[in-house]
């Protein structure tokens, strides 16, 4: 016979762990990352920050997320920074260009903030990527975007080319891309920092260059 240590809790309908549904997320397709995160991907309806100088793999992770979004026949949007998204690369990764809205780099910061609000509140997109030279948005602006994202269930991903060490709690998910590894700086309910090998995300051949067996670099 099953007895409870505290009989007064007998009437409380406890939910077992397997019945708990994790908060909504968008899978990245990187199993190590998806298994580690609470959302089984990046958080939907929240802000994420990918940090890293260009050429270290942040855009690759975003592209992988969009791959999964397009597989579900849903839409994504991207705001260009000083460098623009190259469609030849996207078609290699089987992205549907008809489901990807691209915005040219806005001239002013205020325009970017307005544009982000418009994109989020249109409720058209599952994920929005925003490539920035530097994260210049103020906290109150981020708060407003976060509220809109939650309302419209949009995953907003900032790709910041100038990494900052400060961990802003407004971002539920923060990742830093370095030369050989990727560090998860912040992820709700998970022990951080957490490192994974960069090769899992980044273009595969980059690490082949440095592999001693077929070394191409001096």
């Amino acid at each position: 016979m099953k007895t409870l240590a505290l009989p007064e809790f007998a009437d409380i309908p406890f939910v077992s762990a397997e019945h708990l549904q994790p908060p909504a997320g968008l899978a990245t397709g990187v199993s190590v990352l998806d298994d580690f995160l609470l959302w089984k991907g990046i958080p939907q309806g929240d802000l994420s920050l990918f940090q890293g100088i260009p050429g270290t793999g942040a855009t690759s992770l975003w592209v992988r997320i969009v791959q999964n979004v397009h597989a579900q026949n849903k839409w994504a949007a991207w705001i260009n920074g000083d460098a623009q998204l190259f469609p030849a690369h996207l078609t290699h990764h089987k992205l549907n260009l008809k489901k990807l809205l691209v915005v040219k780099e806005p001239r002013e910061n205020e325009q970017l903030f307005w544009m982000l609000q418009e994109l989020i509140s249109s409720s058209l997109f599952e994920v929005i990527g925003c490539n920035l030279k530097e994260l210049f948005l103020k906290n109150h602006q981020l708060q407003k975007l976060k509220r809109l994202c939650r309302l419209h269930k949009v995953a907003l991903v900032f790709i910041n080319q100038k990494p900052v060490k400060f961990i802003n709690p407004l971002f539920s998910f923060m990742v830093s891309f370095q030369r050989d590894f990727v560090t998860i700086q912040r992820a709700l309910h998970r022990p951080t920092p957490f490192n994974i090998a960069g090769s899992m995300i980044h273009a595969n051949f980059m690490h082949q260059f440095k592999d001693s067996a077929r070394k191409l670099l001096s």
Partner: protein
Amino acid sequence: MRTLCINLKTAQESSSAEAFLILSPRVQFRFPQFIFVDVESTSHFFGGEKGCLEKALHIAAKFSPDAAAAIADTPSAAQVFARWRPSYIAPAGKEQEGFRGLGLDALKDLEGLQPWAQKKPVEHMISFFHTLGVHGLEDVLNFRMNSLRERWGDFGVLLWNRLHSQDAQVISPLIPRDPLVGYGYLDDPIGAVPLLMARLRPHLDILFARLAGLSRYAQKVDVILYCEYSDKKYFLTIEPVSPTRDQVLYEDLLEKKLSQLTLENPVREFEISVFDVPEKIQQLDFFEPRDNTEDRWRRLISFARQADCEMGFLQMEASHFPEQSFRLVTDWPEDFKASDVIERQEDALQIKSVYAKGLSASPRPSLLLPQPQPLSAAEVQKLRFVSSLPSERIESSWWQISVQELRNRDYYFALSQHGQLLWVFKDRINSQVYLHGYFD
């Protein structure tokens, strides 16, 4: 003939009749506020005369909030009912039944397409009937035509004919000729955007109702604001990404534009011009949801265009130079596949090889710089090139060789000292190394 009469209550322009072309092509305006529509052969499209009446009232609400309508066999009786029995539908062939209970004042409205030349004879007739002890319209029906003719001549005959549905009034098809323009004069000049929008909106309501009646789309809307004191004019053009009849979109775009405007003085007058184009006809699938996402993204792109922010879809182009191989388009991008064309003619097979089709499979960076960025000798020194031989050579035809346009490139993969994987090229003419993209 079954006639729908709409009494708009306030004086309108004759062009307002265009809004009711949805109901029937036979529409006629009668000064100052009456619209007559022949719904004999079209009422079934709206689920009967009741549906037709409701639709008419819905349209009329854009012109006047307390508009009234009624349906009868003749225009004159329909006008009487629209005035004295709003929303009444007289039984076909028995419209006189509807006269029961109406007073003699209703005779003033027994006009239809042709109004009484003078009101005085009607008033005289009414006072005369009162002296006879006749106070209801149904009692006048009992008089014979000869009696009325003896007393009032042709006017009496006309009245008898109208009372007995004998006055033939034919509603002709309406041919729209008026331009889609609106004009407003403000007694109290306005400088605040919400107040100005409130004054512009009724005009837009009318213009878009006319557009709907004409089955046209608005390509753009021009608004001219005339300021008080100074003769300053502000010209605003609202042009969404594609022609549409979405009034809310136009209003939102106009409000956004107005809010960016700094007025020198308050606005005294305004003009609105709508430039119309034929309606696009789209056959929708029966199972396709009507609220599709296309309208939402068109709205988004229209907003962005107005804010001078370019957005769209990536359309790949047939060019082997990376920066020319794509552009942003606002329509759906077309599929681009560089592959050989195989033609079959009976037993013969002809293969037309496409130049540089292999380029589509070659590695390309995820981020491309809009303009190649020249690297200094020191920067190049710090790069680690993956191979001494170029991974790719892209060049233009020999007759197009020019140093300025960088048309002779040897591309390499290189690693920066910070671990960035770069896409660089060396110009074969001047040996300068340029950064062109990131494998990010």
